[in-house]
């Protein structure tokens, strides 16, 4: 393992920023530390960098315990949230700074900086000052500056927070491709689940100073292990009386989360559903929101409000219209664990409907897969 955190604790006064944090990161992976504000993700990143010192526990990089190693000697490149570019230096000088500190020869510095300018698509901008650059360009400079001394580990603190929403999407892809190209082990902090899911190979979800779940984006999305992760990821609605829906028993659970993609709604005259009509129940459309590439329907089913998506290519529905609703599954909360409950009315039936082709009952997994 390239980076290991063992039993890390950190408090600021009364505030516990890290509580028994343990995780390992493989060499070459791109990891997201995901969590809401104040969940302790930035503290973890800063401790790895050496900008903060843990109260207890070990931080190991490349087999060496680095708790007492000077931050500058850890072989880390750090991209700050607001980039912390040196405002009184040109782009060239910014990128060259770390190399100058390492007393590289002028020739080598020039070569390396130009190489990085080209890599990051900043060729020709070397003489500009940071205030003459766009947000995206600044991020590229910060990235190039962090990479210049050839670090083994790249840390990025909210790398997209200071960028306009429009450019952000583009930069996500750029950064992921760039990191893959360079092949450097990287950890980035984000509070944006979409960002984590799209960019990272592996996600560490933090909450209140603890690590809630570690896994691939797919796992974190499909198999959230704790109530916190379930509610934090995706668009989730917590419903206490989920057993009021057809196909679900009460059990000992304190409630369940239903995501829009767990629900299908059909017009009453839809022929394709007739085989499963028994598994469906009636819902009323309370609102229709246009969501760009699809519609979000707010439904009232047995007095409970649910949300589902509907393709724009399907027939229009009106507010007040009655629909047949099928709920495939819910994620129930069992203490601080989660259990996925399937709609028992549907168990054993294969749904070979056109509209439902993505929901197939998988015998081997005994569950519906999307």
């Amino acid at each position, binding site marked *: 393992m390239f980076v290991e955190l063992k039993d890390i604790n950190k408090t*600021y006064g009364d505030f516990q920023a890290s509580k028994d944090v343990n995780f390992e990161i493989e060499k070459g992976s791109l990891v997201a530390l995901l969590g809401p504000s104040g969940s302790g993700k*930035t*503290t973890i990143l800063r401790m790895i960098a*050496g*900008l903060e010192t843990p109260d207890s526990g070990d931080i190991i990089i490349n087999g060496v315990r680095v708790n007492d190693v000077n931050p500058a000697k850890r072989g880390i490149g750090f991209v700050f949230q607001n980039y912390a570019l040196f405002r009184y230096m040109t782009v060239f000088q910014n990128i060259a700074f770390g190399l100058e500190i390492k007393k590289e020869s002028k020739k080598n510095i020039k070569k390396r900086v130009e190489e990085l300018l080209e890599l990051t698509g900043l060729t020709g901008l070397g003489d500009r000052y940071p205030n003459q650059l766009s947000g995206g360009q600044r991020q590229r400079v910060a990235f190039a500056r962090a990479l210049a001394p050839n670090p083994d580990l790249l840390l990025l603190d909210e790398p997209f927070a200071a960028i306009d929403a429009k450019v952000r999407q583009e930069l996500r892809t750029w950064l992921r491709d760039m990191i893959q190209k360079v092949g450097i082990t990287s950890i980035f902090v984000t509070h944006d689940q979409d960002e984590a899911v799209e960019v990272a190979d592996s996600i560490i979800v933090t909450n209140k100073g603890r690590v809630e779940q570690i896994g691939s984006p797919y796992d974190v999305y499909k198999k959230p292990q704790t109530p916190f992760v379930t509610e934090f990821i995706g668009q989730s609605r917590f419903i206490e009386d989920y057993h009021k829906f057809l196909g679900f028993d009460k059990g000992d659970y304190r409630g369940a989360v239903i995501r829009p993609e767990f629900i299908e709604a059909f017009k009453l005259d839809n022929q394709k559903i007739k085989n499963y009509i028994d598994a469906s129940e009636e819902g009323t459309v309370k609102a229709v929101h246009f969501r760009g590439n699809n519609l979000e329907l707010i439904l009232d089913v047995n007095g409970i409000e649910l949300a589902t998506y509907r393709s724009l290519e399907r027939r229009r529905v009106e507010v007040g219209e009655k629909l047949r609703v099928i709920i495939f599954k819910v994620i129930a909360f069992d203490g601080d664990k989660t259990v996925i409950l399937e709609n028992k009315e549907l168990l054993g039936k294969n749904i070979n409907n056109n509209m439902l082709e993505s929901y197939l009952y998988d015998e081997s997994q005994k569950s519906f897969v999307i």
Partner: protein
Amino acid sequence: MKKKKARQRRVIPGFSLSMGVTITLLSLIILIPLASILVYSLKLKPAEFIKVITDEAVLWSFATSILCALIAAIINCIFGTMLAWVLVRYDFPGKQILDGLIEIPFTLPTAVAGITLSKMYSTTGEIGKPLSKLGIEVSYTHLGLIVALIFVGIPFVVRAIQPVLQKFDVQYEEAAQMLGASPIRTFMKVIFPELRPAMLTGFGLAFARGIGEYGSVIYISGNNAKEHTQVVSYIIMQKLNYLDYGSATAIALVMLIISFLLLLFVNIVQVKQSRRTNNV
């Protein structure tokens, strides 16, 4: 998202060096010498101390210094707010020069200001002459003292208020006006409460400076014990000249306490102000 950062190891170098230099110089130049006053005055017996402090001339000098400084600070608050307002809110030719001129009292030596004001406002001076025809004497009276203190205090108030006014969003005013408030009501209800901390800071600074002022007031005040125009700084200097160190330190100690209280007041106001503005 602001994080509290209390770290054991400091990443930025130079903590010990800058802490060492700061504390050493601060102690050598400011704290130890001031403590020497305290040490010496503690040697006085309480009865002696009280005798010095309750001497009639000394009590009068405190009254004079504090009252004149207070009146000057209040006048400065009024004119200072107006000046700051004019400098921030209006554009007019020569504004930048006017802005620079505010700082004359900071750059003009107090002794120079003192002799000049004294001469100007004397019964033969440029301003004193016409005023004396109206029966108003300025030099060598309390009025002269106040004029000198207005002179030294005005930039404190203007410079305290200006930045706050600059940051103050016109939208609040506009909102108040949209809701139908008259300009005066808008000022009193919307702007004044926002400016109050800055005004208090400026007031505190001008007041503190006024109480301790020496150079600019000793010429114009006349330093007459009978007319009660002696200020505390003058009395201390007088005691020093008579080598009466006991009295000088006793009076100085009381002055120091007053200064510290004012400084504390200004700091509390500023901390509150920054808290307020940060929370918005």
